[in-house]
């Protein structure tokens, strides 16, 4: 810690921050110091607590305990106004810009410059004031441009310009590069260097360790809601960061298939979806193997899974289950054939959060817990109890709302829904996103059990350690096409990335 007198005073200290939600501890005793003009990278796996911490800093949520010290002044919690007033600005993961306004109007949203006797919005003054801000971030678009015409990268620059207009002293960037091209990312790196030169601190949250290595002065690693460790500029290296992030060797988790591989269960041939209509993907899943599907954001992995599951329409190609054409006209028909999807966004598409756990478990198969169209409460509960025991769903009562469960237990409810039916093929889309380590291991074990039992298992994941640690074979997608497949012997982060990024 910075206790010596000769060091400059920290701009911001998060002191022993804890945050508990019903059933989960999101943050435990997190202490982080931010100095003026430094780039602090905050890294950690999904669900490590980064977003929660930043929400506390933004004044969106209050910590359960701990203090936030700004310029030596301690607060128990911040309001959004306090956070803004202290010069804390966000560049959000989901960009907070308004398509229907121009650049200047976005920058001054809620603080419009006014003039005249009626206090009408002074468009000219706002545009004039916006120009220097845009210059500072090196934007190539003018203040009168409509935001609808800007690319994602340009919108990000706009957000940074907006932060500057708020006299930001700390700019928090949450996964700023996740949807940027390589070139756009380089521009971003330059903007960060410029901000730093202007004495502005940057908290950089990213999964892309290469960028972190490139731009960070210091790295703080969060794991399971706690600070797993910090690295100084000299200590920053890929391996050091990964070691702190995962805290264990995930490859050791790998369990090989119990039996030799069986016949092909699911076969996709020349499958095209609406996101990448010109690209065709072919891949197959055999009985007994776990096929990992890797790729960058926008590679079309989720789109592929949803098309196979009948959510969206295929633009072409064929899908076969056990050698026979699969009816993918609706989720209803694929579910009837035994092809299930554990979707990416369990809160939106995986569960009805406001319904009871037992309702969720039988949701896709109410027919089998009812007779003559009437649901039997007893059978509904028996079925839920069976899955609760089998999967170790931690809840006092299956009549509780799914919303009350922790992420891992919610995912188990989604799994319970499918496992209580007759699975032939299960597609897992980001199955462990936002889930604690313990539950992760259980889900991996379950996937292996399913594969060993002859169920087809396909796992889409952006978590490199997970793809490498769990899969028997990795198929890498790039812009809707299969860029290549790797067998276990060739597994490495490097090889996967090479295929995912392609020859750029």
């Amino acid at each position, binding site marked *: 810690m910075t206790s010596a007198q000769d060091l400059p005073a920290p701009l911001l200290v998060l002191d022993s921050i804890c945050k*508990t939600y*019903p*059933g*989960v*501890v999101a943050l435990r005793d997190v202490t982080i110091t931010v100095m003026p003009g430094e780039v602090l990278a905050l890294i950690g796996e999904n669900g490590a607590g980064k977003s929660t911490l930043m929400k506390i800093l933004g004044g969106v949520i209050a910590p*359960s305990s701990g203090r936030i010290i700004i310029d030596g002044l301690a607060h128990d919690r911040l309001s959004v106004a306090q956070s803004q007033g202290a010069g804390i600005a966000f560049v959000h993961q989901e960009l907070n810009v308004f398509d229907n306004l121009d650049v200047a109007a976005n920058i001054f949203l809620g603080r419009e410059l006014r003039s005249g006797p009626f206090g009408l919005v002074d468009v000219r003054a706002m545009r004039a004031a916006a120009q220097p801000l845009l210059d500072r971030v090196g934007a190539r678009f003018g203040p009168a441009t409509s935001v609808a015409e800007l690319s994602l990268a340009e919108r990000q620059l706009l957000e940074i310009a907006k932060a500057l207009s708020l006299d930001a002293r700390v700019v928090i960037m949450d996964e700023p590069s996740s949807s940027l091209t390589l070139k756009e990312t380089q521009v971003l790196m330059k903007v960060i260097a410029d901000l730093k030169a202007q004495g502005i601190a940057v908290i950089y949250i990213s999964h892309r360790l290469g960028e972190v290595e490139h731009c960070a002065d210091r790295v703080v690693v969060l794991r399971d809601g706690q600070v797993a460790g910090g690295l100084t500029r000299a200590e920053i290296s890929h391996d050091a960061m990964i070691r702190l992030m995962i805290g264990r060797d995930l490859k050791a988790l790998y369990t090989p298939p119990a039996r030799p591989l069986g016949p092909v269960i699911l076969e996709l041939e020349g499958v095209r979806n609406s996101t990448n209509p010109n690209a065709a993907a072919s891949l197959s899943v055999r009985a007994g193997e776990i096929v990992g599907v890797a790729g960058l954001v926008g590679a079309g992995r989720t789109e592929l899974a949803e098309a196979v*599951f009948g*959510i969206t329409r295929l633009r072409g190609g064929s899908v076969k289950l056990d050698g026979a054409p699969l009816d993918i006209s*609706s*989720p*209803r028909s*694929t*579910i*009837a054939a035994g092809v299930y*999807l554990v*979707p990416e966004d369990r809160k*939106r*598409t*995986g*569960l*009805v*959060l*406001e*319904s009871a756990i037992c*309702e969720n478990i039988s*949701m*896709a198969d*109410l*027919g089998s817990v*009812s007779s003559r*169209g*009437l*649901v039997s409460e007893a059978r509904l509960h028996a079925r839920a109890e069976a899955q609760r025991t089998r999967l170790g769903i931690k809840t006092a009562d299956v009549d509780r709302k799914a919303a*009350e469960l922790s992420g891992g237990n919610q995912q188990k409810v989604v799994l319970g*829904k499918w496992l209580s039916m007759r699975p032939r093929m299960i597609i897992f889309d980001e199955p462990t996103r936002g889930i604690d380590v313990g539950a992760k291991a259980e889900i991996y074990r379950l996937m292996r059990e399913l594969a060993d039992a002859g169920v087809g298992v396909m796992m889409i994941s952006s978590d490199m350690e997970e793809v490498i640690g769990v899969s028997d074979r990795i198929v890498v997608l790039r812009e809707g096409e299969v860029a290549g497949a790797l067998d276990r012997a060739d597994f490495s982060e490097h090889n996967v990335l090479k295929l995912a990024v392609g020859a750029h």
Partner: protein
Amino acid sequence: MQKKDLGLAVLIIVVGFVVYLRNPLFLSPINLANTANLIGLFGLFAIGQGFVIMTGGIDLSVGSMIALLGVLFVELIGKYGVPWPLAMLIVIAAGTVMGLAHGLLITKLKMQPFVVTLCGLLIYRGVARGYTGEATAGFPFGATFPEVEWLTIGRSFGVPHSFIAMLLVGVICWVILHRSVFGRHLYAVGKNEDAARYSGIRTDAVVIAAYVICAVLTSIAAIYFAMFTRSVQPSSHGNFYELYAIAAAVLGGFSLRGGEGSIVGVMLGALLLQELQNLVNLLGIPSSLNFAVMGAVILAGVLADQQFTRYRERQRARAMELRGQDGRSAAG
């Protein structure tokens, strides 16, 4: 019976008791029977509205449907001499078609329920007025229809048959909503349509069915209303009835966002609304204040319910937090 419904029932009893103290006529058989008749009439289509609100939708066309279908029924049996069972079937079939149209426009063409049924409100009212040329549709002088009259405005042991009809419909709808597979699907669609679709539920079919159920119950109510008033004034018959239905559902614990509510609740809601009407009449409050009383009670009721829910949630969150800490200290 859910907790919410119980609270509403208590409120109804308390209001009733106060009215009785001020004016003992409240509990006279004739007042009770008249009020029960109105509860039955309004309850019939309020239950239907409940199904639509359960999906997160709304049906604003109810009042106009009651006018148009009322005109149709009166004309069919009064003017054209159609046998009454056939006339009822025709009216219910016409209602079904309207509900089907609403549902299809909303699900297949992705139109907003508010817009679709607002247009229904205008169209059905306009057609009713145009068809009759603004004239009141009524039965020929001296005409009687004993069977229909017994079914609709008759009484058994002093209980109006409209009230009994509502109870019967209520029981059937209770089984459908709270016990059937369809009911579970309806709740799921109302709470999270995406997740329901990802579970293989035919969400479009569920939504369409809700609008059809609403329209069918409304057409039954239309027949009861036509027989009750015996003549249908096409420009005023059924005006604002959709608002009574929505109010009953909201009072009964339905959320306009969908996925919440119960049949007992909406029936009690319809009951409370009629009790308030009755209160206005019996306590000598100018009947022009009718809507104001209703509005104030709904506002207060929903507000109280929301505050209570929030309080309960806070309690639960605190309890869970305490439990979490215990767990940790025990482990550590």
